[in-house]
């Protein structure tokens, strides 16, 4: 790519942040975003000029999200220790995020559904592209995305409450 990397951040930064929220939850999303763009920056000059930049970024975000989630699990607070008050935990999304309930409902989806919803509905990638990232067939990716949205409709009430009785 001869285009300045800044353009990739400007055009896709917001979408990638939402994808990260869907995949690792709001708390770890900022870390996943930072790792994704730092890694993308390093590889940017070698990316072909006709590449689909958004699909490429989402693919990197997918790998980084796995790393961030693993690191989060490693750094989990042992029982009996007092958690840092300033660092919200994964199951208690930051108050500041107005759509925290939505991401909580997304987090509760089975993994395959969550990933397919994130990459198809949030990132806007076509099902074959989603299948390439998560594995399996495009038809399976389409079904997982549809099942995920159907499940969200029953677990997430848009007035801001998550139904706990599914």
């Amino acid at each position: 790519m001869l285009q300045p990397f800044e353009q990739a951040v400007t055009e896709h930064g917001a979408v990638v942040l939402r994808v990260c929220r869907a995949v690792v939850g709001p708390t770890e999303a900022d870390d996943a975003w930072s790792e994704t763009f730092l890694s993308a920056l390093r590889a940017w000059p070698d990316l072909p000029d006709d590449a689909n930049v958004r699909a490429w970024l989402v693919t990197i975000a997918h790998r980084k999200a796995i790393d961030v989630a693993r690191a989060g699990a490693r750094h989990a607070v042992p029982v009996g220790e007092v958690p840092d008050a300033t660092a919200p935990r994964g199951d208690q999304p930051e108050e500041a995020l107005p759509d925290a309930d939505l991401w909580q409902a997304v987090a509760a989806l089975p993994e395959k559904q969550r990933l397919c919803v994130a990459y198809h509905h949030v990132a806007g990638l076509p099902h074959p592209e989603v299948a390439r990232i998560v594995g399996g067939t495009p038809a399976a990716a389409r079904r997982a995305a549809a099942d995920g949205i159907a499940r969200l409709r029953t677990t997430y009430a848009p007035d801001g409450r998550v139904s706990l009785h599914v």
Partner: protein
Amino acid sequence: MSDLTIQLLTEPATGDRERLDALHAALVDRASAESSLHATYRVVDSPVGALLLAATEDGVVRVAFEVEDHDRVLESLGAAIGSRILRGGHRLDLLARELDDYFAGRRHVFDVPLDLRLARGFRLTVLRHLSEIPYGSTESYGEVAVASGNPRAVRAVGSACATNPLPIVVPCHRVLRSDGSLGGYLGGLPAKERLLALERAA
């Protein structure tokens, strides 16, 4: 309800803008710290219009007028020096302050480090000489050719000025025709006139 869930997934939330700005700033810091960036840039206002300022680790590499089209300038900068280019950072804060002082008449010499990698050969020789023309004075294209060691290369001096990657900072605006008329200027003749008037007044 059906489309609302999907719509909520794709809609930016309030506060996302500020969060992204903070993440962007942190990205510039981390990338600078590990020397991943080919250049950073910022855009500043000036009496001769918005100026794009770009710097590598070595120094200021590009100053561009609005009429040059900042997007195109960034694109060709990416092609010339590498495309790991981000907006922001603090590398250009000093030049921005010095430009403010220059346009206020308080500063006659820029003392920021320069990266002249975009110029080569005779053009580079010309640019080095231009930096020696004192504030408030001018030379003709012919005089610059002589001083650059090639008296017959008057036209080449003209193209060195026209492709100066660091206008204002490397003062090609101080080069005029031998009859005293303005000649050309990559920022447009009104900008050249304005810079000369500023330097005459101080």
